């Protein structure tokens, strides 16, 4: 992949603001779930329509899987949020976030003919805020900002140092 990391300052600042805001939002979504004792994705999944409907039903019919999904959701959101704010493993966080949001979108897409019993907070046709946030994370993933403004700078230094001193790292560990 060809890297062109010469954003102008204003470009970088805009991207960093975007990264911080999305990180903030996702982190709070995760923390809110953590703080509400009885939270479960069950009610969201019950509403699932279109291509993920079958999958959602399967999750709902299995308490163990549902619990696992709930746990992964909560901690996944928190990890993604922290990653985006700190600029730590930013690309991984951004791509995971984009995927997760895209799954949320696919579960309840505002397509013509699909109707939901929970009212939405806005008016959507095909495109929803969830989809936009998902794509915004893709933008963050492809325009790196964290090497300058994020802990990834240290991460990349550590990796390059390892490479320099031919330190072998076995990731399968």
């Amino acid at each position, binding site marked *: *992949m060809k*890297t062109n*990391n*010469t*954003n102008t*300052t204003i470009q*970088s600042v805009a991207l*960093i603001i975007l990264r*911080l805001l999305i*990180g*903030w939002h996702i*982190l*709070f979504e995760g*923390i809110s779930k953590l*703080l*509400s*004792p*009885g*939270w479960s994705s069950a*009610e969201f999944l019950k509403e699932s329509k279109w291509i993920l409907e079958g999958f959602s039903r399967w999750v709902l*019919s*299995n*308490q*163990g*899987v*549902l619990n696992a999904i709930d746990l992964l959701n909560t901690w996944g959101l928190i990890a993604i949020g*922290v990653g985006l*704010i*700190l*600029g*730590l493993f930013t690309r991984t966080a951004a791509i995971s976030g984009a995927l997760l949001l895209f799954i949320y979108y696919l579960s309840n897409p505002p397509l013509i003919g699909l109707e939901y019993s*929970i009212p939405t907070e806005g008016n959507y046709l095909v495109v929803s805020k969830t989809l936009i946030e998902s794509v915004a994370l893709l933008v963050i993933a492809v325009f790196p900002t964290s*090497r*300058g*403004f*994020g*802990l*990834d*700078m*240290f991460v*990349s*230094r550590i*990796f*390059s140092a390892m*490479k*320099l001193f031919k330190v072998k790292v076995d990731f399968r560990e």
Partner: protein
Amino acid sequence: MAGKKNKPVQGNEASSHSEKKQVLTRRGVLKSLAGIPVLGVFAYGLLEKQSYDHQKKQNVLNELGLDDIKRPGIIKNTAGKKGSLLRVGIVGFGSRANALSRGMGFMHPKDIEFSRKRGTLDNWLAQENLNIAVTGICDVFDLHAQKGLETVRGGLYPGGGPDTTLEVKRFRHYHEMLESKDIDAVVIATPEHHHAQMTIDAVHAGKHVYCEKSFTRTEEELYAAYDTVKNSKIVFQLGHQIAKNIVFKHARKIIKKDILGKITLIEATTNRNTAHGAWIRHLDKQGNPKPGDKKSIDWAQWLGSRPYVPFSIDRYYNWTKWFDYSTGLLGQLFTHEFDAVNQLLHIGIPESVVSSGGIYYWKDNREIPDVLQSVFEYPERELTLVYSANLANSRQRGRVFMGHDASMELGGSLSVTADINSTRYKDKIAKGIIDPSYPMFSYNPLSGGIDAVSSATEKYYASRGLTDTFINGKRTDVTHLHIKDWVDCIRNGGTPGANIDLAFEEGVTVLMAHKSYIEKRRVKWDPVKRKIV
């Protein structure tokens, strides 16, 4: 990526954006840590929000005098570690007996498999072992009796099952079962027209009784059954598990604290719109008649004291449709509503009742109405109870207690909403502390949380009813709790929640509404003569 380019090279400030010139300058380090203060601001905001929400919730709770409300604590195991063995016989093994068996600690092997697949089996296995041995099953239908035997021999039981090697036996007639020395108590889950006589016979045989609703279908039966139970030492429980739902504990507190103000109207409803809901149950999913014929069903015993009619698969499965066997909506569904209201407000028997309705949708061979309104007057209490039932529309209308200051909607969850013209909350509404367009207090046992200021989703789901409740953080079957109440009273003395006096009040109330519908007039209760007039 870009690994090769990462070799540290001396660079100058101007080109510090370039990856090729990555040098640890002070400015660079500071920039890399830019996210940390953002995280700090986030944490500060989170704490502020938490504190604000808590304060707001506390303000409302303080105002309501509910500041000491908590999630319900551990329920006492009054039976000690494990009570002495109780030997139970079940009369009538239809779908209700299946649910009662689960509550007692027995599940059919097929249901065990199904429950395992759904992931709910562990929950059931964690249910308290009531140390009940089902030693008798009585059913007029061979298939149902067989299902009962298989259920009792299920093979997997909560807490390892009862301490016994006693075998379960099938009885063909309930009289034989009552004569058995291996039975201490009976669970009656037959159609309604047997309840009173079976209760009377069981009491005479010295057996404790758990009887499904509705208790009786005529006045004579009611007085006879009431007197028999009242003059005996047996423990009687009517099958009204609803008050065991943990929301009732909060509802009682709300009533006790007079949060609703003066209650003048209670509206209870039934809203169903399916053939099954209208008691058309003799066909399977493919539309073929369900099993059962003259050979496998003891029709004479099933009819009991009721007028002879030739065997009918329709009557066998859909008995609720005929007044010979049931009081229809009133006995089957209003009883739950009345029980819920009576357990909360102790309204007892109304002074007068007027009912009206008709068969407007399900034009089959039924006698019972499918649309029914009954109005129960309590002039001494200065309140009216309205029961409104429809079997041809499923719009959820809930069960609502209407007071001058607030309304309480009570189902599987509970919510209290201030009245916009309330006297008591006038100032708080003006100041914006209480918003009459949202519930000011809601409690949903399944979400486990107590919410003073409900979220949109909470509001939405607060209206849905549930069959399970949450106790000690565990999903618990309310029927199990109701059976446990009965069993604990048998072992340790005491009066169960749905005792004979409540059964009597409910019985009279139902029969008043029924008589009013049949005779198309307003009926009154004469407590001196003990008679509906």
